[in-house]
């Protein structure tokens, strides 16, 4: 199913769509308020974008510097060309240490690599410890939003999931009760974990350290209670200097949730006593995206989710309608680079309104990249015959004023005289919920000829 079909299904429950839209719009408004409170916000965005563009243009050097500095501090650095290598590396670290129980904090990269099912197939227990991710995990679903993974679930649904998996008592979906029950359950998991896997928000070349941001404290609970910490990062997470965190951390949480900063911004530079710290640097299609001039800046992304919260289509179609690890506007420019055919409907799931580009803290021109992907998709992916033929013919007609004059008149003739059942048939998606324009007696050309002379 393509995006439009999934979105149509999501729209069958209008009350839920309205809730989803309002919940995310509320986050967008909180973001606006938080950004208004920062003097020089737009300049911060310029700097963040400029730093990311610089890093990408010197990525090899920064990767080497980062590795060297990380190793100096006792961190082991691994390199993975693709998802499969990434998963094997993680599994090998676990196997070498006989680690069977893993707690994981949020990492879109491990979602992208499908790490959980891989590790589970090796007999390893993986528990997602971000509450939203935990909900999605026990529901056997995928996150529908990169910052709010379970935004598609109602509290009643969470309630019954917890009754089933945690043996909670029915609470009509009391969020406090449910959160505290999850806390109790996850506490036990943290304390018995052999290893913790986290993502990486920023990796700093000059220090070899990295920063992980959470509100729940789950990354720290895992990383500091298990003896092994494995941090998985996409190679584009690098920034040159620690001072640059000042710029990125000011932008990240404000853009994501409207908070001035996440509750915890943890700076890892050395493993703790008797502990191991590993970093897995992953390519998995990123260097290919780096080669595409028009789409390169999609690698600036710091995964704040602001483009999702502002996107009027995302808010009304839900994250799962995108059928991609990263949904919403940013996902729609990243995913086609991975599998153009599978994700060919995503760049069309937009009105190109440009709100995403305006909220993006690293100034990715998302809507312009959507437009560019469309041009490639119509060339490289087989298009529905009728759509293609109509649009190609339209091109011919529009380049010929005589043909066009005839075409315009016939459209008006049809709209004016065709019986209603013909115009509003099932084939006419426009007319399902909308009236067609009422047709006047003439067009402007005719009026002008009669009333004005050039």
């Amino acid at each position, binding site marked *: 199913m393509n*995006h*439009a079909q999934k*979105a*149509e299904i999501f729209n069958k429950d*209008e009350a839920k*769509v309205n809730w989803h*839209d309002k919940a995310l*719009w509320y986050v967008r408004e909180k973001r*606006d308020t938080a*950004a208004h409170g*920062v003097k020089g*916000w*737009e300049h911060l965005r310029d700097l963040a974008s400029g730093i990311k563009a610089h890093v990408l243009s010197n990525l090899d050097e920064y990767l080497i510097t980062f590795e060297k500095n990380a190793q100096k501090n006792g961190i082991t650095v691994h390199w993975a060309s693709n998802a499969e290598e990434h998963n094997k590396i993680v599994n090998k670290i676990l196997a070498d240490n006989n680690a069977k129980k893993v707690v994981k904090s949020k990492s879109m990269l491990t979602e992208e690599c499908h790490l959980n099912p891989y590790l589970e197939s090796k007999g390893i227990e993986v528990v997602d410890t971000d509450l939203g991710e935990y909900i999605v995990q026990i529901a056997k679903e995928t996150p529908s939003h990169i910052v709010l993974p379970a935004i598609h679930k109602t509290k009643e649904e969470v309630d019954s999931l917890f009754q089933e998996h945690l043996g909670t008592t029915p609470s009509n979906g009391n969020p406090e009760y449910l959160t505290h029950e999850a806390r109790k359950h996850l506490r036990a998991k943290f304390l018995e974990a052999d290893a913790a896997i986290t993502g990486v928000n920023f990796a700093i070349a000059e220090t070899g350290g990295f920063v992980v941001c959470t509100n729940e404290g789950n990354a720290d609970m895992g990383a500091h209670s298990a003896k092994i910490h494995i941090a998985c990062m996409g190679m584009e997470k690098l920034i040159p200097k620690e001072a640059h965190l000042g710029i990125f951390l000011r932008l990240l949480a404000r853009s994501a949730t409207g908070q001035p900063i996440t509750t915890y911004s943890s700076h890892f530079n050395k493993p703790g006593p008797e502990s191991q710290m590993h970093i897995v640097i992953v390519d998995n299609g990123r260097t290919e995206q780096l080669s595409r001039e028009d789409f390169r800046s999609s690698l600036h992304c710091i995964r704040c989710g602001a483009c999702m919260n502002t996107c*009027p*289509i995302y808010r*009304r179609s839900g994250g799962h309608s995108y059928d991609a690890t990263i949904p919403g506007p940013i996902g729609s420019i990243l995913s086609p680079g991975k599998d153009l055919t599978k994700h060919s409907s995503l*760049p*069309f*799931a*937009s*009105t*190109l*309104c*440009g*709100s995403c580009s*305006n*909220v993006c803290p690293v100034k990715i021109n998302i809507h312009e990249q959507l437009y560019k992907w*469309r*041009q*490639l998709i*119509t060339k490289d992916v087989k298009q529905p015959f009728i*759509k293609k033929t109509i*649009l*190609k013919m*339209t*091109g*011919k*007609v*529009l*380049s*010929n*004023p005589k043909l*066009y004059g005839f075409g*315009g008149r016939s*459209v008006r003739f049809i709209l004016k005289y065709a019986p209603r059942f013909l115009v509003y048939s099932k084939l006419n*998606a*426009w007319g399902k*919920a*909308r*009236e067609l*324009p009422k*047709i*006047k007696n003439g*067009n*402007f*050309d005719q*009026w*002008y000829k009669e009333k*004005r002379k*050039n």
Partner: protein
Amino acid sequence: MRVGLFIPCYINQLYPQVAIATLEVLEKLGVDVYYPSGQTCCGQPLGNSGYEEDAKGACQVFVENFKEYDYIVGPSGSCIYHVKKHFDILEQTPDVIKVRNNAFELCEFIVKVLGKKDLGASFPYKVGLHKSCHGLRGLKLGSCSERMDAHYSTEEDLLAHVKGLELMSLTRKDECCGFGGTFAVFEEAISVKMGRDRIQDHLNNDVEVITGADHSCLMHLEGLVNRKKQPLRVMHIAEILNSSI
């Protein structure tokens, strides 16, 4: 100053009254307006659908039609945006560059080029302004709610001087209406939902007439309003600026 009047294809065929209002507004302002014959389309529907290459012919026709004018003015932000932004697919001859630089959306032309805000119009209704995305975020006709810039709005500047007109404040000031060209057809469910939500915002804020500087958004909203027989009129801003009620 010779001004070429650009009337987008759908306005020419389906909304001649918008084209007439645009022409009359410009004439009232004493502009030397010409309407070149043989206009087709700026090519936007093709470009937005991924068939930019097939739009080159239409773009060439556009340039041929308008290359001799000092300014090109049209009542549709998205078409003008397409000319300025996406005519990069043509070879950048002096004619193409001139046309791209001198294309203006009607309101922007009146306010920025002519330096006028009060056109002596009167329109005693409660009006809601729909800010088209391509006009707002593309042409920067106003400040965008996402950006931390000082507030301004070209259309509001003009409407503020219309006698009797009460500009109503909306809850979501610049959310997309969901038209999006072929999006309206290929993503029909979302498009309709977005449009209905926009309309509801206008209704909730006691709007009697929805207006805007891009008639494609308005065509979509009007279609939805008329199907539900909602108590709203939909008019292009040129029609309001040309009113003396």
